[in-house]
């Protein structure tokens, strides 16, 4: 209904032309809510994709900078001395920043989960491990480590974590594509909702469309009315959805801590900037959907 003031005959508001489209009704409020929820989910998905990508990159980076060498002692030496000799050898290989023989207890702790509590590890020939930290600038290859160990007569296997690295990268890629798919699906759902709402809005305001049409309004003019209306509505809803997602992202960043979500989904403050384009994107999707729907309905009138 009219918002005009009714004071005095010279009240400029009374003479300002009212918009051709009626004020919002309850259907529009429902639409704002649905689009806001969809935008919230889309932003949350975007934040999740960014965070999981960062986590995967972190794990890959960590794994690709390290290698593990399993040393099997020969008959004439103890496991500890074989491991110490391997660490000394590896430390001298170009591209190795640090090589450190792990104590027996650490090696036993690593294999304990596979053997169970009952196993007496003291009776088993537990191989010694050497943790190798590579030079980030010019890392040594697994082959060069193997050659150096062989040259010193050491029986050892070099694990360059290739299997784990490939798994992590594959997992990260899947997470990225799934996230992108969900994001696109939510965007498409938002567009469909806006298109549906536009069609319903046009049907509810058919008398306006028909009158404007018969009075000589061009199709683009009528379509633009709906385009602007729904773009504004979607931008507002997008803003609300994005703000809610940003608040949740900030809460994850602040409250995640070392034991919470942060290690799995390490949200950075800069990630929150990802929600900024949401209102604009929502407005754009709504504008395109509204224009196409309105244009198609107006063509039916013609």
């Amino acid at each position, binding site marked *: 209904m009219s918002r005009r003031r009714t004071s005095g005959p010279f009240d400029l508001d009374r003479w*300002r032309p009212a918009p*051709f489209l009626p004020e919002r009704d309850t259907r529009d409020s429902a639409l704002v809510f649905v689009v806001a929820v969809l935008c919230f989910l889309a932003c949350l998905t975007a934040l999740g994709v960014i965070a999981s990508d960062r986590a995967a990159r972190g794990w890959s980076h960590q794994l690709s900078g390290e290698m593990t060498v399993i040393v099997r002692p020969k008959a004439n030496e103890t496991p500890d001395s074989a491991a110490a000799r391997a660490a000394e050898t590896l430390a001298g290989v170009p591209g190795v920043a640090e090589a450190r023989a792990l104590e027996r207890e650490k090696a036993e702790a690593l294999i304990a989960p596979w053997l169970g509590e009952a196993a007496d590890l003291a009776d088993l020939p537990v191989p010694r491990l050497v943790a190798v930290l590579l030079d980030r600038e010019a890392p040594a290859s697994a082959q060069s480590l193997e050659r150096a160990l062989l040259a010193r007569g050491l029986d050892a296997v070099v694990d360059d974590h290739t299997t784990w690295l490939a798994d992590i990268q594959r997992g990260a890629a899947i997470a990225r594509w799934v996230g992108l798919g969900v994001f696109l699906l939510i965007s498409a759902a938002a567009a469909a909702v806006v298109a549906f709402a536009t069609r319903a809005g046009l049907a509810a305001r058919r*008398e306006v469309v028909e009158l404007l049409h*018969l*009075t000589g309004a061009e199709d683009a003019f009528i379509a633009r009315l709906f385009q602007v209306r729904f773009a504004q509505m979607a931008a507002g809803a997008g803003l609300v959805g994005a703000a809610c997602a940003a608040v949740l992202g900030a809460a994850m960043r602040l409250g995640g801590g070392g034991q919470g979500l942060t290690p799995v989904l390490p949200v950075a403050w800069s990630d929150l900037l990802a929600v900024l384009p949401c209102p604009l994107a929502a407005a754009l999707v709504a504008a395109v959907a509204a224009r196409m729907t309105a244009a198609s309905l107006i063509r039916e009138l013609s």
Partner: protein
Amino acid sequence: MSRNPNAAETADAWDAVVRFDDVSMRYGREPETLKDLSFSLPQGSFHFVTGPSGAGKTSLLKLIYLAAQPSKGLLHLFGQDVAQTPAEVRPFLRRRIGVVFQEFRLLDHLSAFDNAAVPLRIAGRKPDSYRQDVAELLTWVGLKDRMHALPPTLAGGEKQRLAIARAVVGRPDILLADEPTGNVDHEMGLRILRLFLELNRLGTTVLIATHDQDLVARSGMPVLHLEDGRLAHMGPVAAGARP
């Protein structure tokens, strides 16, 4: 009064602002509502469309204001074949036609003033340029004190006068009116007729669908009389004929 009440019969059909050549019209798969109509209306002519209910009066007007298309025949508006007119040109043809709809078609969320100004806003006029014209017109049709009222608060007669004001505010080349005096008293009916005649005197082609015998008789203008979708008579009111 019209400069030439019987212009339709004497003018060169090719100079007509409206020309029907063997035009028929149907809604969907229904039987034809209008059948084989051929006539022309020269610029500045004034006609009533008469006939019993269901004869096709409203459908005839719909064809002219481009709300419907002929199922057969040729319809020319302002010298253009409507069927061949590009879609982007049609709005500009519609702007040259003022229509008083039988059901008024007022926009309930706009004030009487804004309703009357719709054609001017669509034509791109700024509020400052039309404010006085619209106010004067609304005063003339007796809505001076109702300019800021919303249509749901207007009486039937007030709505009708507002619909008429909206139809004539842009000084259209053709004015079409569907039962324009159906909801007003005798006095207001005569005032409306005078407005139409004045517009006609200024060059507007006027076509009014009506059941109002008195209005037709008082004007002395020719009629297009429809019977069962066919043009039964065109010219001065035939003696004894009932509109």
